[in-house]
Each structure stands twice: as C-alpha cells, then as structure tokens.
C-alpha cells in the first residue's frame, strides 16, 4: 500500500477526519465551548430533508439499471477481519462500508448526506441528536432495522469502550427509542461532531448475545448488514466477493458483484489491470503508476489526497524517554530541516508525484495552508545548517566527520522507517545522506509497521530518536492536523510528544473563532510556530495515485481522495458496465 500513513492507524485517521468536514466551517473542535457553533449541515432541520430528497433521486445516469456484471477491484493487502469493532485495516473498512450502513454518509462532494437515517435533528444546545430511520431498511436476514439496533450499537461501544468508534461516544448518556423508527441519542456535552457519520449500525439480534470478550475475538465471517452489498465469499489470501443486496433500502447498485482480488505485488497488480484482469486499482505506487500512463484502455488518475509524510523527532519530556536528549535542542532540529532537500525527496522518492512539504496543513487545503516565505523556509540549505550548528557550539571535535556537543556527545541519532513503505525507506536514505553532509550522523533501521507503530507510540518510555511515516487527513479542514501536536494528544495521535502551552492556547482560540479570516490568522500562526519548532519535518504532500480501465466500467467520479478507498461509497453504486 503506497499511502502509508502507518497503515495501522490510517483507517482510524481517515474516519476521524471524515467527520471533520462537518466541523470545517463550523466550530473545528469538539470542545465543550463549541456548543454555540452552528453545526450547519446536519444540525439544522431543513438541510437533511433537502439533501435526502436529492440523494434518493439519482441525478446522473437515469438509464442505469441493475446489471449482472462484476466489478473487479485489485488491491495489495486484504482485510484483517469482518468485525467492524476490531478491524484495523483500510481494506476491511472499505468492504464493511458497503455491507453496513452508517446513519449518515458522504456524497460525491464529500458533504454529509442521509443514509440509514433519513433525517436527523440536533437540539439547540447540541447535546441531543434525534435520528429518523428509514422504514424500509432491513437486515440481510430479513429482520427490520430499528432504533433498538442503534441503541445497542451506540451503547455497547460506549459501555465496553470497544473499537476506534468509542472516542466519538465518550460523552454518551443514553439512547432512547420511543418507537422503532426513532432513536434519540443524549450526550452530556454538546456534540459538534455527529457520530452518525462514522459508527456502523450493527444488528442487535445477532450481536447482543456476545460478551465484550467474545466480540473481541469474533471474526464475523457472515456479516449481517443493511448496506447495498452483502458478503458472498471470502477466499482468504486470495479474493473477496460482495454481491448486491436486493433488499437494500436505497437505489440498488448497478454492479451485481464486486470482486476484490489480492495481489502480493503491486507491479503484478498493475500488469493485471493492463491485461484486463481487473477494472480498478485501489492504490498504485509512483514508479508503477508511471508505467500505467499511456497503457491502452487504462486511465491512471492522480488526485489530491490531503496527506503528507514527515520525519518526526522525539521531543518527549517523559521521564522514561530513551530518545537522544540532544534532539530537544531546536537548533539541531532546525539544522536537520535546513539539510533536507524536499524537492529532491519528491523527485526521487515519489518519482515526482507530489509537492514539496512545509507545514502540517497540506497544500491541498489551499485556503488554510501556510507556506513559509523564502526567508523563513528551512529547506535545502546545508550551509545555513552548518552555520546554525557552528554557532550553537556543535562542532566536530575529534575529526570523525560527526559534530559533537560542547560536552562531547556526538550528534548521532537513530532513524527508523517502515520496511514495506518503499517511498519512506527511500526518503530515509536521502535524509540520512543529507544529514551526513552537515555533520549529523543518522543510523537508519527499518521495522515492520506494527513494530514501528508500537515503538513510536510507547508514550511512557519512547525508545527512538527519529522516524519517517505519514498522516492521511482525507478532508479539507486544518483542525485535525493542527490537533495532532497538542499536549492533550500525547498518548493519542501526538507521535513526537511535542507539547507547547502557547500552541495549545492558539488551538483553543481558533477552534471557537467563527470568522474565517480571523481563524486563518490563528491557524497560520500555529503552522508557523510548529514549523519553526521543527519537531516535524514535513517532507511532501503526495498525490493519490489510482488507475481504472475505461473499456469495462464507466462513470467513475474522480473526486479528491480517490475514486475508491474514499469516504463516499457512491462510485461503487453508480458505475455502469460497458455493454
């Protein structure tokens, strides 16, 4: 998988971020003070019904009727489980997204739209969400979908703190079910973010018999869902097939089946697309993508992705931290920033498929991105790096080519990267060489992604100096990315243990600033501060590279984030086979 944000966390982040689209213009934070913020899209009562109407009458391709064709998708990694409460994999999310419904979903403009709930109302104080369920929604075993299912799903996740979803239900008090079609969800704090957008609704009659412990090891081999597709067959290590759910409450999908095929190698996968064995690829690495452009009947698409890869530095203040304390000196971090040539990284590690990185708000979020001036930029300037280090007294005292601090400690650090993410390994090699030219020695090692994830997030005793990986932000709002380096995120997303009170204060301020010009000023300030503190060296903003065949299925909507592997599931429902 190319889009390696540590893919261990990618799904979590993607979902998290998708929620933020709502907060975008609105409040930007789940902080209690945001209760005054208008949660426009979903909160207001007229909006949902309007979009519901739009959603139920298909605007495009009115002639499209259900076919008996199979849409063939190629991917290079397979789901870990069909249990939405234990999965960590992006592939599982992609499949479960079609098998289960959420109460609300996303349309092709990445705007919220009704899904299992035809409408939702938010109480004026933001603490009560009332979902009106569709009367014709049914589980694939024939039982109707009722508010009891919503109650079970929300309350169980909250009570047993199951899965990633529990973080959106932290403040849940109860779910009331006055009738089968109405679920009234009460929180003890205002909810700026609507959890209906992310939590898959599970059938109570199947899951409620299981204890939390049983759920933890439940493989859910035959998922009973309410979505547009159902699982037909999963040949593990090989393929997974979905078939159309004819009892689906909405417009039926045009594809009769979706067959996901696992390729152990992305190159072979690309050849399979060229040869016509599959119709679309979920992700394609840069050098392979280049080989697909110009192939007959293949369209290689490059879409914005709102993600970045970065070098993180351990600045933890934890007593148990085993990181090299020299990295807590901003000068050294800045010198590393100056040593790094980001354009070279884009050219060589990404084969040109991206933009040089700077701040943690990706370039794709045009109106929010802050770009350093030529003066401010800490990039591709090894002389400046040397100057900084010389001035701070880091010089090579013993002639071994590596600088030492005044008390004789060498500027030698460990650098780790994910073995299977070749773009990162390449970047790490280039970074190591760049650092060497300014007299800083980096010892590069690669780890598998799980080990790297658990090494980095060892909050109490992080035993590492620098790493390479990335964040995948999925929706165009700066709030999520800006929230990563908060003190309060140590133990959660904060992967470098950066903690700065002034930064935190700015974050709270921007989260409650409704005027976008004023907010922009604040977020710029935050980006600049975090850039200058250089705990992250953002390397690049990469493009999302995918490819599909043009002669088998038509009507792919090329939306930011990708034609598949994206929040909206519309493409799966709407693409049309060529006759």
């Amino acid at each position, binding site marked *: 998988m190319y889009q390696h944000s540590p893919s261990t966390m990618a799904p979590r982040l993607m979902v998290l971020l998708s929620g933020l689209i709502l907060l975008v213009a609105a409040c930007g934070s789940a902080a209690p003070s945001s209760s005054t913020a208008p949660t426009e899209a979903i909160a207001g009562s007229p909006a949902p019904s309007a979009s519901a109407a739009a959603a139920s009458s298909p605007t495009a391709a009115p002639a499209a009727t259900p076919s008996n064709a199979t849409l063939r998708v190629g991917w290079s990694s397979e789901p870990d489980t069909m249990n939405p409460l234990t999965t960590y994999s992006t592939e599982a999310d992609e499949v479960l997204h079609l098998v289960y419904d959420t109460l609300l979903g996303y349309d092709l403009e990445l705007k919220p739209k009704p899904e299992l709930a035809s409408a939702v109302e938010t109480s004026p104080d933001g603490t009560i969400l009332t979902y009106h369920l569709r009367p014709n929604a049914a589980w694939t075993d024939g039982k109707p979908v009722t508010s009891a299912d919503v109650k079970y799903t929300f309350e169980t996740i909250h009570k047993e703190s199951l899965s990633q979803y529990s973080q959106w239900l932290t403040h849940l008090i109860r779910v009331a079910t006055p009738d089968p079609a109405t679920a009234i969800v009460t929180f003890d704090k205002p909810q700026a973010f609507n959890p209906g957008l992310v939590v898959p609704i599970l059938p109570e009659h199947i899951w409620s018999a299981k204890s939390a412990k049983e759920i933890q090891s439940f493989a859910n081999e035959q998922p009973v869902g309410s979505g547009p597709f159902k699982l037909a067959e999963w040949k593990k290590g090989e393929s997974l097939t979905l078939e159309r759910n004819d009892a689906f409450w909405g417009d039926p999908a045009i594809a009769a089946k979706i067959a996901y095929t696992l390729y152990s190698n992305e*190159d072979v996968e690309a050849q399979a697309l060229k040869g016509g064995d599959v119709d679309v690829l979920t992700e394609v690495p840069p*050098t392979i993508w280049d080989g697909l452009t110009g192939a007959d009947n293949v369209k290689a698409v490059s879409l914005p992705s709102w993600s970045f890869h970065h070098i993180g530095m351990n600045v933890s203040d934890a007593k148990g931290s085993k990181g090299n304390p020299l990295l807590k000196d901003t000068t050294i971090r800045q010198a590393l920033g100056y040593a790094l040539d980001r354009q070279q990284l884009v*050219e*060589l590690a*990404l*084969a040109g498929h991206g933009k040089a990185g700077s701040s943690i708000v990706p370039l794709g979020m045009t109106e929010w991105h802050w770009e350093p001036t030529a003066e401010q930029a800490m990039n591709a300037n090894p002389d400046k790096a040397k100057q900084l280090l010389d001035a701070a007294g880091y010089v090579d005292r013993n002639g071994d080519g590596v600088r030492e601090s005044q008390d004789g400690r060498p500027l030698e650090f460990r650098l780790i990267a994910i073995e299977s993410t*070749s773009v990162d390994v390449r970047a790490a*090699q280039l970074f190591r*060489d760049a650092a060497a030219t300014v007299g800083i020695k980096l010892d590069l090692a*690669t780890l598998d992604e799980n080990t790297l994830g658990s090494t980095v997030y060892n909050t109490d005793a992080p035993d590492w100096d620098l790493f390479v990986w990335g964040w995948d932000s999925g929706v165009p709002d700066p709030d999520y990315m800006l929230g990563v380096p908060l003190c309060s995120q140590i133990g959660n997303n904060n992967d470098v243990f950066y903690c700065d009170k002034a930064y935190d204060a700015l974050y709270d301020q921007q989260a409650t600033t409704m005027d976008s010009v004023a907010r922009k000023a604040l977020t710029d300030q935050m980006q600049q501060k975090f850039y200058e503190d250089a705990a992250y060296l953002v390397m690049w903003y990469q493009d999302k590279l995918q490819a599909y065949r043009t002669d088998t299925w038509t009507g792919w909507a090329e939306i930011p984030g990708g034609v598949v592997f994206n929040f909206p599931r519309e493409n799966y429902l709407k693409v049309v086979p060529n006759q």
Partner: protein
Amino acid sequence: MMVLSAERRASIRRTFGQVWADRLGRTGVVLLGATAIVALIGPILFPFDPKQVGTSASSILRAPNGQHWLGTDELGRDVFRATIEGARLSLVIGLLATAISIVIGSVVGISAGYRLGRLDTVLMRFTDFFLVLPAVPLIIVLAALFGQSTLMIIVVIGLTSWPATARIVRSQVLSLRERQFILRIRSLGATDVRIIRSHILWNVMPLIFANTVLVIAGAILAEATLAFLGLGDPVQVSWGTMLHFAFESGATGRGAWWYVLPPGIGIVMVVLGFILAGHTLDRILNPRLRNR
C-alpha cells in the same frame, strides 16, 4: 607417520590440480576467481556511492546508456556500480555465515565423534533436532524475531546451517579415531587436545573444506532469499536487497531488465561457482560419497 606440513602443502596442491583438471571444477574456480576479483577490485575502479542519486524523477529507472552502463535504479543510482558493490556484501555475508557454521559444525562433530559416549549422544540429538527443522522457515522466523541488521543476518544464517557439517565431520572422525596412527600416538601418551589439533583436525580438514564450499553457496542463497522477502538490511547494497527493491519499485513491470537481471545473474554465477567447485572437490576427496 606424522603428516608433514610439506606433505600437506603438496596434497593441497595436488587436490587443486585435480580440481583444475576437471572441466566443471575449472569452470567453478574461474567463476569464483572472477567474482573475487570483481568484489575486491571492482569497487576501487567503479566506486559506488549510494548518495549519488539522480537529480529528478526523469533519472529514475533509466535504460542503459553511455553514462550508466546498466541503467539506473529507483533512486537514479548506477546499477552497474551497485551490482559490483553488491558482490562484496553477498560474498562477505556468505563467507562469514559459513565461518560461523563451520566452526560450530566442526566443534560439535569433532567432540561428538572423538569423545563418543554421553557427549556424543547429547550432541547428536541436538544436531538431529536442528537437522529436522525446516531451514528456510527457521531462518525467516529468526530474522523476523532478531531484526534486520547485516550482523544479525550473518549470525542467523550461520546458526542454522551447521548441523549437516557436524554430521559429516563426526562420521569422518569416527573412522579416523580407530586408525592405527592415532591409536599409536595415543598410546604414546599424547593429550586429546594435541591429538585433535595436530592430527584429527588436519585429516578432516579436506572434508570440512569441501563441505564449506557448498555451505557458502547455501548461505549466499539464504541471504538473497531473506533480503528478497524484505528481511534483509535495506540500508546495505547486496544482490538480494537490489532484487527486493527492484520488485518493490515495479522495475520488472516497466521492463527494466537492467535492474532485475544483473543481481540475479550475479547470484547464479557465484553460487554456481561454489557448487561446481564443491561438487568437484567432493568427488576427488571423497570418491565413495558421489551422491552428494
């Protein structure tokens, strides 16, 4: 009675002469000699600087040209120079891992065969246990558990390839120990250590050597396999890691034969060299064991 060192030298020369006289043996020696020269002198004539990367995306995976005789890799580096550099690491790993394996195998084999009794039973149980473990899965598991530095890879391969050597050495020692001249020396009051050092060892040496040559071939293949499966040290250039990155970066699909073929051919040449030499040596030193 005592084997004189001049005699030993003569016997070594004679053995080499026999290998050289054999067509396959000679081919093997030539292949190995060529590789050794490439590994020793190549990097001096054509130094490989891993930092010498391309300048832009267009310098990635370029076909061979006047400047890059074997094209460029996924970072725009020279494949010809990398292949030469790779010879060095592949050989070093192969030789060092084999050294570990041979030392353990010889120590175990000699002590078991010479001492017999309980020590023999215990050591051979132990050896048989390791013989019965499937080699490639064992190496993979150990590499996955112990990490991916070059040193660990050498240790892991060394630690997993000694049992066959131990077995072969033991059986040779068993027959030696009952030979007249050993019995006589012992009756003259020589210590075990002395007997082993100056007689047994020298007599099993040819066999150990023939075995070594084959073990190196196996160790080089093992390193390449580990590296290809993503368990090598990705920071170092070996033929295995080159093939790993070629596979990862889609070199094959882009038809970049110049990146896929040279490291593979390098592996085949070296391994074939060792196998041919070992095969011939084995036949000469050990005419009864022709089925190896």
